[in-house]
């Protein structure tokens, strides 16, 4: 049986968009700062923000190399979900955030780690996109749906972003 419901938040980070990632990490850091336990599951496009900026090393199939080439390499490269316009919108958004002194996504991720937020990467997505573990940074656990459901069953707050 799953454990009792605790003061805990589970967030699925499915999107690889900067704006949605900011929302997810804002909630995660806020919850951790309020004494809540937080787990974030990164799946599909969300995996991109855990990638190292160096990109793919070593051998991969043609499709695997294409995924690596086409998808953002790390949190500093994410597009925005609206008005991206080939990255111009994302660049303007980042500049505006800097001017307004909002934490940039890489800093927010670092903050989340310091506050003890657990980072879990979906091993199925990694397999599909041929992303090896060495290409990701700061992952506490590699897991699948059963792990998420166990954590979600113990959580008061569950979000899909």
């Amino acid at each position, binding site marked *: 049986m799953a454990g009792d419901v605790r003061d805990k938040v589970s967030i699925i980070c499915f999107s690889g968009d900067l704006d949605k990632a900011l929302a997810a990490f*804002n909630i995660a*850091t*806020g919850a951790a*700062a*309020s*004494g*809540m336990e937080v787990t974030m599951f990164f799946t599909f496009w969300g995996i991109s923000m855990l990638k190292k900026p160096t990109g793919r090393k070593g051998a991969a199939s043609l499709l695997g190399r294409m995924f690596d080439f086409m998808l953002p390499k790390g949190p500093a490269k994410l597009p925005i979900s609206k008005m991206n316009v080939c990255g111009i919108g994302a660049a303007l958004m980042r500049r505006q955030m800097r001017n*307004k*002194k*909002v*934490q940039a996504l890489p800093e927010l991720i670092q*903050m989340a780690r310091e*506050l003890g937020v657990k980072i879990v990467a979906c091993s199925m997505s990694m397999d599909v996109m041929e992303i090896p573990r060495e290409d990701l940074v700061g992952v506490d656990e590699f897991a699948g749906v059963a792990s998420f459901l166990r954590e979600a069953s113990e959580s008061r707050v569950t979000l899909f972003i």
Partner: protein
Amino acid sequence: MKADEVVDARGLLCPMPIVKLSQKIKALEAGKVLELDADDEGAKADIPAWCGKTGNEYLGMEDAGGFYRFFVRKTT
């Protein structure tokens, strides 16, 4: 109101004021009062909400002209 410690979160936006607050209050002894200075309008709702969530005591807010001083007593 007199505080034992002051945290400056002016110029910082959500979620940084409560992140700063949580980090600073950890080092404080129970019963001590922390002052948080912030100019984010959202903090007026968020600081009392954070206190309610964490069980620390919200003592109130002063308008310092351009920013707010929030007072929190550590209880947990």
